[in-house]
């Protein structure tokens, strides 16, 4: 489900990312948040997702910001974007109130 590297961590999420998998996903991501200073999350292989996963991504973004961890999210598909937009799951930034959670495909 996920590749893992120390200090500069790269995580590739794949398959289903929903409430059923959310505890595992959280466990892995939280470990990285505590250990790595640079984290890259690749979503290109995510197949199914729900709001609990989008919330987890928001949490990771907030936590990274709090810990001054450099975070990059990539491989965001149109489906993920659409899903996030549908429930207005955006995250605040310094510049604007309405920054999409994910912008690049």
């Amino acid at each position, binding site marked *: 489900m996920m590749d893992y590297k120390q200090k500069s961590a790269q995580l590739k999420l794949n398959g289903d990312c929903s409430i059923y998998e959310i*505890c595992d996903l959280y466990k892995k991501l939280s470990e990285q948040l505590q250990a790595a200073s640079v984290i890259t999350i690749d979503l290109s292989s995510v197949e199914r997702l729900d*709001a609990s996963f989008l919330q987890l991504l*928001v*949490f990771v973004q*907030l936590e990274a910001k709090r810990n001054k961890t450099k975070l990059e999210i990539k491989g965001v598909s149109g489906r993920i974007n659409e899903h996030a937009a549908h*429930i*207005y*799951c955006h*995250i605040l930034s310094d510049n604007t109130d309405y920054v999409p959670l994910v912008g690049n495909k």
Partner: protein
Amino acid sequence: MQLDENTQLFITECNELLDDMEDALLKLERSPNDVDLINRVFRAAHTIKGSAGLFGFEHIISFTHVVENLLDDVRNCLVPVTDDLISLFMRVKDHIAIMIKGLVDELPTDENEEQVLLGMLSAFKVGNNTEKEMSIQEAHLTGEQSEDRQQVRSEHWHLSIRLGPDTFRQGFDLHVLFDQLCDLGNIVTARLVTDSIPSLDSYDPESCYLGWELILDTNVDKKTIVEVFEFFDGARISILPPRSKISDYQDMLAQLPENDKLLGQLLVEIGALTENELQQALNFQMKNGGLTGDILVNQGVVQPEVVDSAVEGQQKIRKEKQQELSFVRVDSAKLDKLVTLVGELVIGGAKVAQLATERDDDEIIESMEEMMLTLENMRETALGLRMVPLVNTFSRYHRVIRDTAKQLNKKIRLDIIGGETELDKTVIEKIGDPLMHLIRNSMDHGIELPAERIKAGKSEEGIITLKAFHETGTIVIEVSDDGSGLNPEKLLNIAKERGVVKASQNLNEEEIYNLIFEPGFSTAEAVSNISGRGVGMDVVRRNIESLRGSVVVNSVLGEGIKMIIRLPLTLAIIDGFHVRVSAESFIIPLDMVDECVTLNDEQITESKVHGYIKLRGNVLPLIKMGQYLGIKANNYPSPRLNLIVVKFAGRKIGLLVDELQGEAQAVIKPLGRTFQGVSGFAGFTILGSGQLALILDVPGLVKSAIGKEHAVQTINNKRDLSGNLCEVSMR
């Protein structure tokens, strides 16, 4: 039927509410856009329905429910106020009154009338209107109302959404939530709120921490929006309406029936607050205290303006309730009993006072004087309890005038002046029918048809005026109209034709006008179901005179008629002036006594020669009471002759008596059937000595002296012609 106290109270209150409903309907007819009047009618129907519910009077509940529904449409400007609608509600009011009366009489209500009314109410309901009618109703909306509606359409709702922690676990799909919101209207903006997402230590990935601040453009009401979140357990949703909705809520608050509800309940009722929001606020209040309104505003679920309006309304209702509480409903029979007892106390007090005077004990006399002062206060207070403003009696005629005017194809308005004037309840109860008769006569014979009025240079609408005011211890009620007035020539001719007056007899104007009080006398060319049979005016006068009152007619041909009724303030206890004629005691009502004069020798001679004396240059007709009453003067020799000047209806006469005994409170007792035919007396009273004293009927005495006055005037006129007037005046 013997009714329990509560049912009696229900009936009394319903009748009061129905009176209020009728009054509001009559006013609404003239001001169809007056929201307050519509609310008054609605409140009356609503309260009757609610109270009937407490007693389980199902037929009243079901009927008033239909009435209330239509009134609700009227309140919401969906059904315009028209003459037909007012007439329907008048019939509805009458029908409810019959239903209420049926509770006492145990009579069934008129099923046919009920079915007809229900059919008419249904026909007026907004859903049953044709498109044409609807467009007419739309046209009735004022420009401002239309603008308001536009504003509601263009402004946005603000939703603060905080989902419950178990939202994910319970498998709710947030896509569905947002789809439903989109179905209601357009989501203008939505800002994700992440404040609740905890840090790493306490983050639970299965818990939901999401929230949104969302702007929704929709025409639906708050309840519909709330329903979207119905199944989201634990969600905290605050919904603030569009800006223009604040005024809508304030209007709704103003229109709510006047129930003493709690602030939260009021806000839930108008849709400004959801049950859930209220519960959360109350939970917060339980833990932290504070005022509900403040909590609701701080939690951002209701705007401060709406809370202020609700609080203001609450305070108004509570104040009114408080005022209501300061009144106690008392059975009038108990008041009558109290007045009777006070009367007995007055008689007893007078007796003790006399004994104290006879024993010449200063201490007892002093104590007695103090007690008599208190007794006098008590008497005035007890009598005051029975004093009722005339306005309620007068207002009843609005409906009669409205209905009769329609029947006669006339336009007639009732003006009431001095409705606040108070009169003893017993007198008021007896004056209702005579007034009704006079008003019916004015409507039928006085006020002309609109075309005739315009031709005569009058306004299309005729006016009947009821005016009440105090005048020297009496109440004057004037019933006047601006109609055609009485034609004295015609009256006299009819009287001569019918043999009421001899062909050779000449009458002055006042005497001619008084002919209308003769039994069977009518000037009407046609008999209608309203008046014209010549039955009634004699009864009117008899009824008024039985109240120790009088009625006088003033009329100007082409300009109208004025019937002046004078009535005593009370029929129970009066302040009297005790006089003695020979050995007999008499009481003169003190408020009719103008002055007391001891006559000098010249005046005594004059009084013996003529039936009058000259008092300060004015001729004063006299009644020598001893002679008038047939009492032998030598029974009880008097050192001098005393004159009491009494006045009534602007006229003064002098009564010659032997001795003035001073003021005395007199409890008026009826003379009884044997002496009812005796004129000149209004009743009798028991003096402190236990002696009986007749109470003089001053209006009757004044009336009988008028003949003498005419004679005096005739003599004066003759002297004037012979040039002797100066001589007479100089005496």
